[in-house]
């Protein structure tokens, strides 16, 4: 006999994975939990001050912003999705993936770019004045981009792909038979969009809009540069300028309530509809050929959001970055920031992917209520805006730091200071909490494509649960794990609010550098940093467009 049957009793395989997943879920839950505790302890005097002065205005601004961005993204996302599915015209294939490009531009970068592009004494306004025959900005200027309207429009033009992606997928998978059936029932081609396609796509639009609004809630840079005082901005200033942690937590909690309302809105907007893929493979939607003249018009209409959301800022950043490099080269400070950005994002990515593997594989080994809940809890952080997570992490780690410091002082007579918060561990923690959902979700989807019989085959052929993971799941889900890692990495690079709040003293990343310059109103190396972020941000767009093509 090669292997004697083990004679001692032991727990079922997967117990350790389950324990690990439980620990991860606790780790992720802790900051949110701490936030509640802290907010509950807050002094009542401060709260009444907050409630009467800051909160109402911030809440009103946040809601106006959400409504505006929701409307713009819904209109842009659905119309572009319909454009590329329903009509065949030259350039449609390019448009299909190019419409994703604005995803690569974070909200704070588009605001940064347009502040300069549309500056009253900038070249764009100068050209317009020259064409209209005005001599100076006193005589004529465009409405100031630093306004609520400006903020809504700019956010709308970079966030619409969140609606475009699911809606287009929905249009594509909708059976062409439904469209044909509605036409035989006497609905004109034009009316099909309003009466059939759009109502059917409603769940997808709802998902997309709610994702875009989550991003809006997370945004700190654009709103601040453009002078919109949202809840997120208020949390930041309450903590940074007043060092008022209970106050910040209380605003953070009200922001969380907005998030919960948003999720409820999504559920409501979806109605009773669900994504359903019929048992029969449905015939793909056949786009309608249009005459060349009209085709050109459609192409231009499709290019417009790309131009505004990606083209113009990208051209601006490239030219500014070029000028700067020609003028001063790359400073050592900039290279240090590049190093910081890459190291922080890489470290966070590795941990987040490992945790994601743990969560996803535990659910596979032990499918059931326990793991379903673990999965749900551990991905909660994604819905929470970066500032909320950052404040939560701050509370947790400040408590730990205080505890370790006092213990060390009592036992060894040495003060450890702020061990976690000072070391960047806090920032990694916040990244993990925020992006674990991406990693766990992506890996889970990858594992779901592997039949369960593979697990069973491997086990009866002598591999343990861990061995099965190594020899079967890992090689078969490499692509999904890599893709998840890439998405996490890019999101870490782009993440501004948490980085701003939790970075160790004197540590700058691309994102915080850009924020600093924009806040000071100086335009130096920020364009290079912004360009770097956009270039990195294009990576997942390529991934997404490839996935879209593979599906067809």
């Amino acid at each position, binding site marked *: 006999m090669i*292997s004697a*049957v083990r004679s001692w009793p032991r727990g079922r395989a997967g117990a350790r994975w389950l324990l690990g997943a439980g620990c991860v879920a606790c780790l992720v839950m802790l900051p949110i939990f701490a936030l509640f505790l802290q907010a509950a302890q807050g002094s009542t005097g401060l709260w009444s001050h907050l409630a009467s002065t800051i909160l109402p205005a911030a809440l009103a601004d946040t809601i106006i912003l959400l409504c505006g961005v929701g409307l713009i993204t819904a209109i842009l996302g659905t119309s572009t999705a319909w454009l590329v599915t329903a009509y065949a015209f030259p350039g449609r294939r390019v448009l299909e993936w190019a419409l994703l490009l604005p995803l690569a531009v974070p909200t704070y970068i588009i605001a940064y770019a347009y502040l300069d592009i549309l500056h009253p004494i900038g070249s764009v306004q100068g050209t317009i004045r020259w064409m209209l025959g005005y001599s100076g900005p006193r005589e004529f200027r465009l409405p100031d981009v630093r306004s609520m309207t400006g903020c809504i429009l700019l956010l709308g033009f970079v966030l619409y792909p969140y609606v475009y992606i699911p809606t287009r997928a929905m249009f594509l998978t909708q059976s062409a038979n439904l469209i044909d059936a509605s036409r035989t029932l006497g609905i004109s081609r034009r009316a099909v969009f309003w009466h059939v396609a759009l109502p059917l796509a409603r769940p997808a639009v709802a998902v997309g809009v709610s994702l875009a609004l989550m991003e809006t809630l997370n945004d700190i840079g654009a709103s601040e540069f453009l002078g919109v005082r949202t809840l997120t901005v208020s949390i930041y200033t309450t903590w940074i300028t007043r060092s008022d942690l209970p106050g910040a937590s209380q605003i953070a909690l009200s922001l969380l309530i907005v998030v919960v309302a948003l999720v409820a809105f999504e559920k409501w907007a979806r109605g009773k509809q669900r994504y359903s893929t019929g048992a029969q493979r449905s015939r793909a939607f056949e786009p309608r050929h249009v005459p060349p003249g009209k085709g050109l018009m459609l192409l231009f209409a499709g290019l417009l959001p790309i131009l505004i959301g990606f083209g113009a800022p990208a051209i601006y950043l490239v030219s500014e970055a070029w000028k700067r490099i020609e003028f001063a080269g790359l400073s050592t400070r900039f290279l240090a920031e590049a190093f910081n950005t890459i190291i922080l994002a890489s470290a966070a990515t590795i941990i987040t992917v490992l945790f994601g593997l743990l969560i996803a594989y535990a659910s596979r080994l032990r499918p059931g209520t326990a793991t379903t809940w673990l999965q749900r809890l551990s991905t909660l952080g994604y819905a929470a805006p970066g500032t909320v997570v950052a404040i939560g992490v701050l509370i947790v780690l400040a408590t730990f730091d205080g505890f370790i410091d006092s213990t060390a002082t009592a036992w060894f007579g040495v003060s450890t200071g702020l061990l976690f918060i000072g070391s960047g561990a806090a920032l990694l923690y916040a990244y993990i909490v925020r992006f674990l959902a991406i990693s766990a979700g992506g890996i889970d989807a990858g594992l779901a494509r592997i039949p369960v019989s593979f697990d069973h085959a491997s*086990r009866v*052929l002598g591999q343990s649960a861990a061995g099965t993971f190594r020899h079967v799941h890992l090689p078969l889900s490499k692509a999904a794990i890599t893709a998840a890692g890439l998405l996490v990495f890019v999101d870490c690079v782009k993440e501004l609010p948490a980085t701003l709040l939790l970075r160790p003293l004197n540590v700058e990343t691309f994102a915080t550098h850009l924020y600093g310059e924009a806040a000071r109103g100086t335009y130096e190396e920020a364009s290079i940093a912004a360009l770097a972020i956009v270039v990195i941000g294009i990576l997942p767009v390529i991934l997404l467009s490839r996935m879209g093509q593979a599906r067809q």
Partner: protein
Amino acid sequence: MTPHAKDRTLELHNVSRSFGATVALDDVTLTIASGEIICLVGQSGCGKSTLLRMIAGVDVIDGGHILLNGEEVSGPSRFVEPEDRRIGFVFQDYALFPHLTVEQNILFGLKRRPKQEAASRTADVIAHIGIAHLQGRYPHMLSGGEQQRVALARALAPQPDILLMDEPFSNLDRGLRERVRDETLSLLRGLGTTVIMVTHDPEEALSAGDRVVLMKAGRIVQAGSGYDLHDRPVSAYAAEFFCAFNKVSGVYRNGHVETAIGRFAQALDAGEGTPTTLYIRPQAISVSRGPGDVSGQVKGRIFLGEVEQLAIAVDGLEQPLQVRTMHRLPPDTETVGLTVLPDSWLAFPPD
């Protein structure tokens, strides 16, 4: 194979398993001797595949004990992991690892052995199953029949004590299925392997197994030889699972079932006057143009080649009787005489 071959047995004692409110296995007790080929048969959802997974140890049981070679492997206080059970498994979808070649798939189960030994064992199995020409290929390059053989080779390579097969032939085309089944079973008989095979096909169960175990809703309905289950079913369910019967309602009186087509002697453990259903096989009724025990009208004819299936309406019966006959009746036949062959019927009181 080894001297102890005859000692190897699998025992299931009162095995139960539920998934939420659904009872998948309910108090299953079964003993399997070494070298036996067992067919677990039943409709989908009857618990037959669940039972296979419990034996393999890829799922746990809620109650009862499973013993392998006299040693408990699943029970309230003990659980042996599947990798330590020495059980082979051929899955319905074959579960060949797509990132490994045929040869690497077979080597997968031999990782605990020294390299040399694993290599020579792989070569042996590949030669024995006759798949040498496939060994460098990947699973997606194989036909259904080839995949089945590779799955079998992979399961047999570690020399398991018991081989479990879950619907191993259901993915094959009809003509191919019978050939592969005959080849596989004669190979396994030659090796003396203990086999538990799951199928939903009654014909496959009757022809393939030394012993047939019929399951329904997580319980064993009847276990025995194919002849036992087909000819002497213990319940109406077992009877109907293996054969499409004519069902004639009647009443049990004085050791007979009285029906519209006559009295049929049948000893039943039932009170006088109990409503009883008589089960008559379609091929157990002889039909002729002359007079029989009862007469009937031909209502439909389906020519099947070897036999012809007739639907014959008889006064007093709600449904026409289905009769299968090799006797060719002239096309204009309307009235026929029917005779039920002696001792060919079954009777069960309704549930």
